């Protein structure tokens, strides 16, 4: 009789042996494993929630792959892409440019788990994680490659991370740090738990639901298929958290509080505008705030609490930022549209504005007057007055514009001095992230720091656009050519 997996599983993953001619600390240096002060035998309690065997993995992944391919083939024959709303396309451009190479970086992170994780059970799972992330990067590239012939912006799936575009640099600043530069334990807390168990659901499940409603079945299917891998390999984080809660809970709490805020800021930039402005009004499922409450507050945070973690100390400010921050980011991104590699929708036609007011009671007070001024200028035929003439100022932690984390009336200066230099932040929370670990951020100049250092020549906006790699064929502009502004009568 065939053994069932439960009978042989524990033996199959027990791949450790006793080192006889080399010091274990040399095989698993703490700088890579991140084991820190956790005693070596504590890792024996590490027990994966989601079991995986190689035989099942291959069979299941093959089936997933067949499903994605079948949907893709059927839809490219049906010419579905050509029928999509152009505003929705910005979500796909932004997603692929902003995350394809993060998937590629995740391969390196998972392979670090394979080699250096402090228990053989985790090293074993890292193998599957590594194969998963290889799949994600390749799926994105294949998807984008097929669309290149109809839309050159899909080239940025591969290209974006090889440019200095400011938003991409913000994404890179975070993932360089937590994926490429982090030891296994820190990566588990910041990536497996915070990003993969928490925030990627916003993009890969919730936004995928919007994309499905918008008729982008192929992309939506790709996203949720990728997330079926994420949901599984994110589970590597929980047994690691359990060990840390036993032996070094302060470290777990701080690492997660930092990663949670940095993720919040990035997804307010990536998912917020995509849900509340780029998704056509009729197809919006819920608002970004409502999805955040579902996926981050009720879903993600509840599980962390079950392990004994406290909510981040800035929880009330986090909730408050859900009302404002992504609206400010969206307004800034639209204003700086020549610095984008996609065409953003302003998303403030009279009907869309009605929806925003209903979903966000303070939207009109916080941002309405700014859009009114923009609308008046468009109606007066003065589009140049709706375009930037200088750079914003960027946060030294998130690399995102200062002002993008709150409403205008909440905007205040946040700064720290470190080794004789002044660093500026988009919020008191980003300032706290810096203050608890300044070395992590101090040597990473923002685009504005580079500009001031004279790295960007000529020192003007065209010079900055050239430095960022923005070319005329992809440069952003209002996707509907301001038709939404002309819908206002006597504005």
């Amino acid at each position: 009789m065939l053994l069932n997996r439960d009978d042989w599983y524990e033996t199959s993953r027990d791949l450790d042996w006793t080192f006889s001619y080399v010091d274990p600390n040399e095989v698993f240096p703490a700088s890579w494993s991140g084991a820190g002060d956790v005693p070596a035998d504590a890792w024996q309690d590490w027990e994966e929630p989601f079991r995986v065997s190689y035989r099942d993995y291959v069979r299941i992944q093959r089936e997933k792959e067949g499903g994605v391919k079948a949907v893709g083939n059927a839809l490219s024959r049906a010419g579905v892409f050509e029928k999509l709303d152009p505003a929705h396309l910005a979500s796909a451009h932004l997603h692929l440019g902003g995350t394809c190479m993060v998937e590629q970086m995740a391969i390196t992170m998972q392979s670090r788990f394979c080699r250096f994780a402090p228990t053989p059970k985790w090293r074993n799972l890292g193998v599957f994680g590594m194969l998963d992330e290889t799949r994600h990067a390749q799926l994105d590239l294949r998807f984008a490659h097929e669309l290149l012939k109809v839309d050159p912006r899909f080239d940025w799936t591969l290209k974006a991370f090889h440019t200095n575009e400011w938003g991409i640099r913000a994404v890179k600043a975070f993932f360089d740090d937590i994926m490429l530069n982090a030891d296994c334990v820190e990566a588990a807390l910041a990536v497996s738990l915070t990003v993969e168990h928490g925030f990627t659901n916003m993009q890969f499940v919730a936004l995928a639901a919007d994309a499905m409603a918008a008729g982008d079945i192929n992309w939506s299917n790709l996203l949720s298929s990728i997330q079926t891998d994420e949901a599984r390999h994110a589970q590597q984080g929980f047994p690691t958290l359990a060990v840390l809660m036993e032996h070094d809970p302060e470290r777990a709490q701080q690492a997660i509080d930092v990663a949670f805020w940095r993720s919040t800021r990035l997804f307010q930039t990536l998912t917020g505008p995509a849900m509340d402005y780029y998704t056509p009004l009729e197809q919006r499922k819920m608002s970004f705030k409502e999805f955040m409450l579902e996926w981050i507050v009720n879903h993600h945070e509840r599980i962390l609490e079950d392990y004994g973690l406290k909510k981040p100390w800035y929880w009330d400010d986090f909730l408050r930022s859900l009302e404002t921050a992504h609206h400010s980011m969206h307004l800034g991104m639209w204003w700086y549209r020549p610095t984008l590699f996609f065409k953003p929708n302003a998303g403030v036609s009279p009907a869309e504005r009605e929806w925003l007011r209903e979903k966000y009671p303070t939207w009109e007070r916080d941002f309405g007057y700014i859009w009114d001024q923009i609308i008046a200028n468009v109606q007066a035929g003065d589009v140049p007055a709706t375009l930037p003439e200088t750079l914003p100022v960027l946060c030294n932690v998130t690399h995102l514009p200062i002002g993008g984390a709150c409403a205008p009336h909440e905007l205040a200066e946040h700064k720290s001095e470190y080794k004789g230099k002044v660093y500026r932040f988009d919020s008191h929370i980003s300032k706290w992230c810096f203050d608890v670990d300044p070395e992590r951020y101090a040597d990473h100049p923002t685009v504005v720091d580079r500009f001031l250092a004279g790295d960007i020549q000529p020192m003007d906006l065209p010079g900055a656009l050239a430095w960022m790699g923005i070319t005329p064929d992809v440069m952003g502009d209002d996707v509907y050519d301001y038709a939404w502004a002309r819908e206002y009568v006597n504005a």
Partner: protein
Amino acid sequence: MTIIELESDAALDVDHVGPVIRAGRLAECVIDAVAADNPDRDVVVVDRDDYVRIHTRGRCRLTRESLERALGEAFQLEALEIEMPSFKGRLRTRTDEFLWYLTTSDGEA
């Protein structure tokens, strides 16, 4: 035990746990199987068109036996992953049973 279909925008109880399945036949069968496997609990279903939350409070069992009965064919629980982009709760997977749970819920007992 009842199956309660929540309005799409209804607030979820934070202590509800269980799988999130892509809309389709498998999701329907998982609802029936979860109902059979958790006779002492209400099954809360939140249908968001593209994905479906199938949750019970504090603790949610899904057995191969119930799912196979609902599907009317053999099914390995590992393959649930193909249609499961997310799930809520701590998880324990065995050949014949997946279990989602919280250790700090009053609905856990």
